[in-house]
């Protein structure tokens, strides 16, 4: 490890630093980058510590969404009353990350920035139709979270850009969501496969639905075809079973050190089915009952 260290104290300072810097990595919680530097997987010339930029922190609500600072830790998300009420599926996912120690410093922005295909919070954010706000010195834009992942460990963010806000759609009445994870043990486990589901029902009909997976592709994915098929269907067991089968057919997972493609395919169906069932049950409860 050998790098120059920058710790800007404000957003303005941060954007100025980034404007002039090349070959840098961000330091948020550090749970990923510090280990990668130690193992010499990456050797950045510069480290930009985001922790003193207050604008990147905090969780607040607006009428139809939550604003979550990318520096919010998994623990903050897990324990936030706002998240527990309006984005509980994200709280559930955050609670499944690593260990208490990792959740205490690991951040949701870091989870996105690492672009790990197995990140736990990302599928939850995807089904909540999250938009990320990206800034650079003279530019600000918003993108759907789905559109920023390029491949394992890679995003479409360019040098000079930083994620400054997550806009996470609130769960409203008639809507429900669920997060399901398979790991190799009950804690300190990277997902073998994970899945988040969100849906809106009107009486017995599925009005809208979103399904996202982690660890089945080079990036976290949405199952747009399955979602399309589900729209307008009856919210009932047979439909969920069919959707589960379609989900299984739609994904093309691979073998790796944690599991096999075959196993991921098989359990994907089970996860989607479980996710839809739980989400439906919650949609029929009142908001905030979680």
């Amino acid at each position, binding site marked *: 490890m050998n790098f120059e260290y920058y710790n800007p104290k404000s957003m303005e300072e941060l954007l100025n630093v980034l404007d002039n810097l090349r070959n840098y990595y961000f330091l948020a919680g550090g749970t990923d980058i510090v280990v990668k530097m130690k193992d010499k997987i990456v050797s950045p010339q510069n480290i930009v510590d985001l922790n003193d930029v207050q604008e990147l922190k905090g969780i607040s609500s607006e009428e139809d969404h939550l604003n979550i600072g990318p520096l919010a830790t998994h623990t903050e998300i897990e324990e936030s009353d706002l998240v527990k009420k309006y984005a509980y599926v994200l709280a559930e996912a955050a609670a499944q990350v690593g260990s208490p120690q990792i959740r205490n410093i690991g951040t949701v922005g870091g989870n996105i920035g690492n672009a790990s295909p197995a990140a736990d919070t990302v599928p939850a954010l995807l089904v909540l139709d999250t938009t990320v706000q990206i800034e650079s010195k003279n530019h600000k834009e918003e993108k759907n979270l789905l559109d920023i992942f390029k491949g394992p460990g890679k995003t479409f963010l360019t040098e000079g850009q930083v994620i400054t806000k997550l806009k996470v759609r609130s769960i409203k009445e008639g809507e429900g969501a669920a997060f399901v994870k*398979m790991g190799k*043990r*009950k804690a*300190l*486990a990277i997902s073998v496969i994970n899945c988040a589901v969100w849906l809106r029902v009107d009486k017995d009909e599925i009005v809208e639905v979103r399904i996202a997976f982690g660890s089945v592709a080079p990036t976290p994915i949405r199952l747009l075809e399955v979602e399309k098929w589900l729209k307008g269907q009856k919210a009932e067991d047979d439909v969920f079973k069919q959707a589960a089968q379609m989900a299984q057919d739609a994904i093309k997972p691979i073998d790796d*050190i944690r599991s*096999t493609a*075959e*196993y991921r395919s098989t*359990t994907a169906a089970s996860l989607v089915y479980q996710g839809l069932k739980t989400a439906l049950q919650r949609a029929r409860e009142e908001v905030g009952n979680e």
Partner: protein
Amino acid sequence: MKKRGVGLANMWYGIGNTGLPNPASAYIELLDDGTVIVLTGCADIGQGSTTTLAQIAAEEMGVDIEDVRVVSADTGITPDAGATSASRQTYISGNAVKMAAKEAKTILVETAARMLEVDEDSLILEDRKIVVKNDKDKFVKIKECLGKCRAEGKLTLGHGWFNPDVTALNPEDGQGKPYATYAFATQVAEVEVNTETGEVKVLKIFAAHDVGKAINPINVEGQIEGGCMIGVGFALMEQVKVDKGNIKTPNLATYLIPTAMDTPEIYPIIVEDPEVTGPFGAKGVGEPALIPTAAAIVNAIYDAVGVRITDLPVTPEKLLKEIKKERN
């Protein structure tokens, strides 16, 4: 769907090295103030041998546990006690310490007998005193007796060594007496199998272990509980993956051991069938603790879902495949 099952498994385990001499030795010195130093080569690696040996010395010398200090595992100071392996230290070093203590107290007993004007045979050591067995009001304090010993120019030292009674195994047919004594155990596991994902959750383990005599029951329980968890790992998740001689699981993120959240409720049960050649009847428990666990879990999985896995560990991948096969 989640299905539960119960499985049972037994084990036996010979204490000490197999068919080989494996002696241990110890020194003891009883100091002027009645405190004791035990010198032993026995390496305590967390299992608690230092404490166990101190208890054996204290019991034999009739002193309090606080009076005993154990100096261990320093080849510049302590005598050879062999390896901390084969669940052998309580039995073998325990005997060595007991014998050393016995030797150290002979001078004391001889002196006390003269002081109390009784037979040596009528004396026992307890509560820092040398007491007449059948007349407990009649005693001399160890410290006083030591004063007398010193006045007579006598030191109170002891050395003991013990080698278990074994014979080599015949190279042709393996006949012989490989161990002086064996530990026995039975474990019952209750598991819950998720038939959709192949995940196994171990809910409970009942672990009954014949340790001869538990010198320190809470430490024996600790050995049993810790052993069970190594057994759970062996049964369900642990696997060093090797590809052409290269380890693909070189860290604790890829080589997984159970966390606190993976632990079942463990019910340690101590069974004491005394071993006459053991110190106060003790045998050993370190390794036996884990031996039947995986077998009990595998048998419980069969009880739950009718699938028998013959290749450890029982990963969800493997089990789910077999469950599906069984269904078709």
